């Protein structure tokens, strides 16, 4: 079973004069079938962590590995291949292509990997059905609600059957009810397919639906739980 593993990862950015310790010595393992949330306020290093997991940045020290492969050691081409084949990514802003049907939107990773559009559609369709959009595959994002748009994005992320699910604040543009539905969907998929899922969020509600929550603060994994978090989950 595949697993995402971060070991003593450090990533600093220098912005002009001062150095921002975006990630400062974080170790974390997400195993297959596990849906894990990283909770933290803005500026706590969540996004950097996600970029590390996607192989888009390399750590200053420590290592990020997936399935035993150290991401920092991949060539640029293999790194792109890793994102294309192994990673499914979900954004807060969806980043769907405008005026393009849900089905075509869901094929974007497949066509990027050399499929024809026809082949891509054949493979993406079951995923749109899985996320409950089977009846609206020809609708464009503009004709769909925010929740439905995020479902397209999930179908898009899953269409090439990734082995790792990463999500950046996926419920940020959704109301709480739809947000819950989306998170439950993601959790179920991780469980069904036995793949690791990592979610970053500053939404407290979101953290109640995951298997495990870690709190980030100033690049560190905070020991224990945030008082606010504790209050809500009790």
């Amino acid at each position, binding site marked *: 079973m595949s697993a995402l593993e971060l070991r003593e990862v450090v990533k600093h950015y220098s912005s002009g004069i001062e150095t921002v310790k975006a990630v400062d010595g974080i170790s974390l393992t997400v195993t297959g079938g596990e849906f894990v949330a990283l909770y933290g306020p*803005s500026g706590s290093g969540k996004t950097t962590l996600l970029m590390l997991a996607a192989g888009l940045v390399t750590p200053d020290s420590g290592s990020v590995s997936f399935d035993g492969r150290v991401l920092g050691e991949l060539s640029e081409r293999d790194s792109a291949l890793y994102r294309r084949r192994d990673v499914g990514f979900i954004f807060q802003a969806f980043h769907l292509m405008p005026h393009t049907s849900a089905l075509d939107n869901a094929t974007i990773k497949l066509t990027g990997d050399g499929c024809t559009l026809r082949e891509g559609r054949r493979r993406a369709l079951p995923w749109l059905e899985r996320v409950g959009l089977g009846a609206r595959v020809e609708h464009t*994002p503009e004709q769909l609600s925010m929740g439905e748009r995020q479902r397209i994005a999930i179908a898009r992320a899953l269409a090439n059957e990734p082995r790792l699910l990463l999500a950046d604040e996926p419920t*940020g543009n959704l*109301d709480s*009810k739809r947000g819950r539905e989306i998170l439950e969907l993601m959790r179920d998929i991780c469980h069904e397919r036995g793949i690791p899922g990592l979610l970053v969020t500053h*939404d407290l*509600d979101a953290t109640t639906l995951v298997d495990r929550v870690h709190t980030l603060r100033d690049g560190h994994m905070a020991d224990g739980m945030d008082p606010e978090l504790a209050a809500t989950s009790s």
Partner: protein
Amino acid sequence: MTPLLSFLNVSKRYPDGGREIAVLDRVSLDIETGASVGIRGARRSGKSTLLRLAAGITLPDSGTVCFAGRDIARMAGSERGRLLRGEIAFMCAADWRATPGESVVDHVATSLGSEGLTMREARRRAMRVLDRVEIGAACAGEPTTSLSLDERARVMLARALAREPRLLILDEPVLLPNLSERDGFNVLLRGAASERNITLLMSSEEMAALQGLTVMMSIADGELVSTEPQGVVVPLPGRWRAGAERSGQ
């Protein structure tokens, strides 16, 4: 006595894809002068819509929103504009917009241009109000892009206070991770409001941000419910009146 702000059966729907969702469903409430009202609600629960309706930024699909007894929807566009430049001030942390290169004092001063002030007069007034929100003269000359989250919130407050409004509407005014900074802002806000007798209407996702306000409400699924300060939710019977807390006076 006419309430300063009153909502009567106000509904607002938004298109969401091909359908419409009811953001607010027949909401009624009265807010009297001097009250300070907090509205807690989750993301996309309709609290921003409520506040934007209150400020006349957007108009209701049905029902009426009255400010000082006048129906906002029936005002001419320029009259509504006048409302926003005088009696009502609106601030939303998410709408922060720093024009690069603009100094803090100019940022506040330009917002006063609609009143027909010259730049010099506007700057003078901006300096006074920046001083009130504890932005010093040194910081006032800095570019807006160099502000911290806390300073941004205070500059936005300064812009709002500069027009000496009767009603100050704050939609999630602070996005601060730091609790002590947040408290600092709240102390500032409440101090300024009470010394100028400004009515407050403020929303947040988090209870903590609304602590100390006299009236608490909660919004979910387009409906307004009252919340006691302790966090107990009770359904709102009919029309809710939020009176000023007179005990302190």
